[in-house]
């Protein structure tokens, strides 16, 4: 009787608990959902859209749909047939009437330099639709380029729906007339240099931050709490000061009539002002200053957790201080060094404002080019492709950072 009663009650209780737990999980998900939806709309989808733009080949299919359709059956050998020429003539006339010729011309000009002129002049000279069967001769008569194989492979290569053109261009590669991947011509092959420069500046800034940050973190970690809290202000205050304020201040300090040059001249150490800003030196100074706290804080939190007993043990076993430091202390700071370096490097390679303001033309990093192609020359495909490469590098490094930070139970101090 009792046993039956207990068994009868136990089942619903178990189920009730399960159901309560499920409801709890559901409610938890409901709390996270608003942020996820919000980030979808303001962050994830926009960035996915940007990546899509780096392969999206919409211009030629939109402006010249009949030509694209006619070329889909062309095998790429010799010249296409009369149908393709007729379709092209029709598309050009329609595009000229709609005023969209420039869109396709811009896209095709990326493939063959000078294509813009071919397309616009042909459209201009094509007064009336050619008689049936004469489209080929008419078009070649207007511009002999239409009798060249390369012209048509260019159109075919830009016929969409997706293209590898921008992504290849972002790493200094292109396709030749046969579609094989080859190196870009020298005057267009600037992006590998750009990535190299971006990573070199990132590496330089990271090294400087480590060299400058290490003694500070060590000092803060080994001082009594009251004193280190006080000195921490010197790290946190610049950290909290507006990026633009600090950049502006560095210009004031380093410019040719600035404080540094003024003092050096006053001391008679130099006759001419040194060039300290609008060059690589200025970029290193300002960026190291901005990113230094991101190195000090994780280093500090790791060093803080290293027990002094280890060093004492090493000393008591007869290790000289230098040996004890390199063999005992330094290895224990590796997680902090790793986290700090990764964090600084990740932030450095994405920098835009500081190099834009304190660097010269030869110091601009990848972000500046992404902004330039977006707002100035409106080459959104290339801007997106460069962005995609930068994003990939960042995410890979961030994943490594995440692994490191997770392994250390999130002690790597971000702003909290």
């Amino acid at each position, binding site marked *: 009787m009792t046993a039956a009663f207990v068994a009868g009650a136990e089942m619903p209780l178990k189920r009730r608990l399960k159901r309560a737990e499920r409801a709890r*999980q559901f*409610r*938890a*998900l409901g*709390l*996270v*959902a*608003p*942020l*996820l939806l919000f980030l979808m*709309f*303001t*962050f*994830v*989808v*926009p*960035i996915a*859209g*940007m990546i899509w733009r780096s392969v999206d080949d919409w211009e030629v299919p939109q402006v010249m749909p009949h030509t694209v359709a006619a070329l889909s059956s062309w095998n790429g050998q010799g010249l296409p047939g009369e149908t393709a020429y007729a379709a092209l003539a029709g598309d050009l006339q329609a595009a000229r009437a709609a005023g969209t010729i420039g869109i396709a011309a811009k896209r095709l000009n990326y493939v063959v330099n000078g294509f813009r002129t071919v397309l616009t002049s042909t459209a201009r000279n094509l007064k009336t639709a050619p008689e049936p069967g004469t489209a080929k001769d008419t078009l070649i008569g207007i511009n002999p380029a239409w009798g060249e194989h390369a012209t048509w492979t260019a159109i075919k290569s830009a016929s969409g729906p997706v293209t590898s053109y921008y992504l290849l261009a972002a790493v200094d590669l292109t396709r030749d007339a046969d579609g094989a991947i080859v190196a870009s011509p020298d005057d267009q092959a600037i992006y590998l240099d750009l990535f190299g420069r971006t990573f070199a500046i990132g590496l330089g800034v990271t090294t400087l931050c480590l060299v400058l*940050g290490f*003694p*500070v973190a*060590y*000092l*803060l970690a*080994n001082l*009594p*709490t009251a004193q280190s809290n006080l000195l921490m202000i*010197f*790290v946190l*205050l*610049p950290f*909290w*000061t*507006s990026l*633009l*304020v600090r950049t*502006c201040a*560095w*210009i*004031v300090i380093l*410019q040719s009539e600035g*404080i540094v040059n*003024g003092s050096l001249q006053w001391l008679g150490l130099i006759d001419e002002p040194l060039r300290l800003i609008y060059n690589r030196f200025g970029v290193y100074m300002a960026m190291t200053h901005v990113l230094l706290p991101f190195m000090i804080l994780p280093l500090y939190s790791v060093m803080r957790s290293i027990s*002094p007993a280890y060093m004492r043990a090493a000393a008591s076993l007869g290790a000289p201080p230098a040996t004890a430091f390199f063999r005992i202390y330094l290895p224990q700071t590796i997680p902090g060094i790793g986290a700090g370096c990764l964090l600084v490097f990740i932030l450095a390679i*994405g920098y*835009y*404002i500081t190099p834009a*303001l304190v660097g010269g033309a030869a110091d601009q990093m990848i972000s500046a080019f992404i*902004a330039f192609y*977006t*707002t100035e020359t409106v080459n*959104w495909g290339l801007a*997106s492709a460069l*962005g995609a490469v930068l*994003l990939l590098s960042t*995410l890979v490094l*961030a994943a490594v950072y995440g692994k490191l930070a997770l392994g250390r139970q999130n002690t790597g101090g971000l*702003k*909290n």
Partner: protein
Amino acid sequence: MSANHSPRTLSQRAAWTATLVAATLVFVFLMAPILAIVPLSFSSGAYLTYPLPGLSLRWYEDFLSSPRWMLSLKNSAIIGVASAVLSMILGTLAALGMVQWKSKWKPLILAVVLSPMVVPVVITAVGVYFFFAPLGLTGNFLGLILVHTALATPFVFITVSATLQGFDMTLARAAASLGAPPLLTFRKVILPLILPGLASGALFAFATSFDEVVTVLFLAGPDQRTLPREMFSGIRENISPTITAVAVVLTVISIGLLTVIELLRRRNEKLKGNMA
């Protein structure tokens, strides 16, 4: 672990002295911009050089009487407060959900939530610019507030999560066992205890928005130019002493925010200490 450094030997003392000297130099480097710019803003001359010809408040007057600077201050405040409120709500709810949620997808969701902090801002700005332009969200406040909220929410999320990690969930269970419905438990038990974390999260969010310039460069029209945006063009063209005055005002605001956040952090730590 305090005062663990008691140099005994000569070489230890030398190493400690070297550390002190190196660290002092770095502190000077860190403080140099602030130390250099504050006196200049009080100069009576129009050139940014030392020695100062005399002291005056004319550049502060210039700032306060310029409609352009005042508009940008107002814009920054509007966008900053709106994004702080929005990201505080979204970030806090998500942090509350994430502590209770158990799933194998959690690391992925966490990565998405934190990613606005990692992705280079220029990429966010370009992506949002492409996406928002056809929706009519460029050249107005709404678009900027939405983006700044996205950029600021990770900071709120981290701050509130850190507070919740020290939060004793048995208190919430106790409230529930005494018959309080979830919303009442939240209002009467959870909220008062995590309020300092919430407040510092909101301040972080405000500071993030208040200092952000890249997305503003892409999305703002002439009527939404913020303080950092005006500073950006000012630095590009020609640094006038007015900019140094603005810089000092901004620095004072930062110091204020930092102080409040630090006080909140200490209070929170004390609370945690009492509960443990």
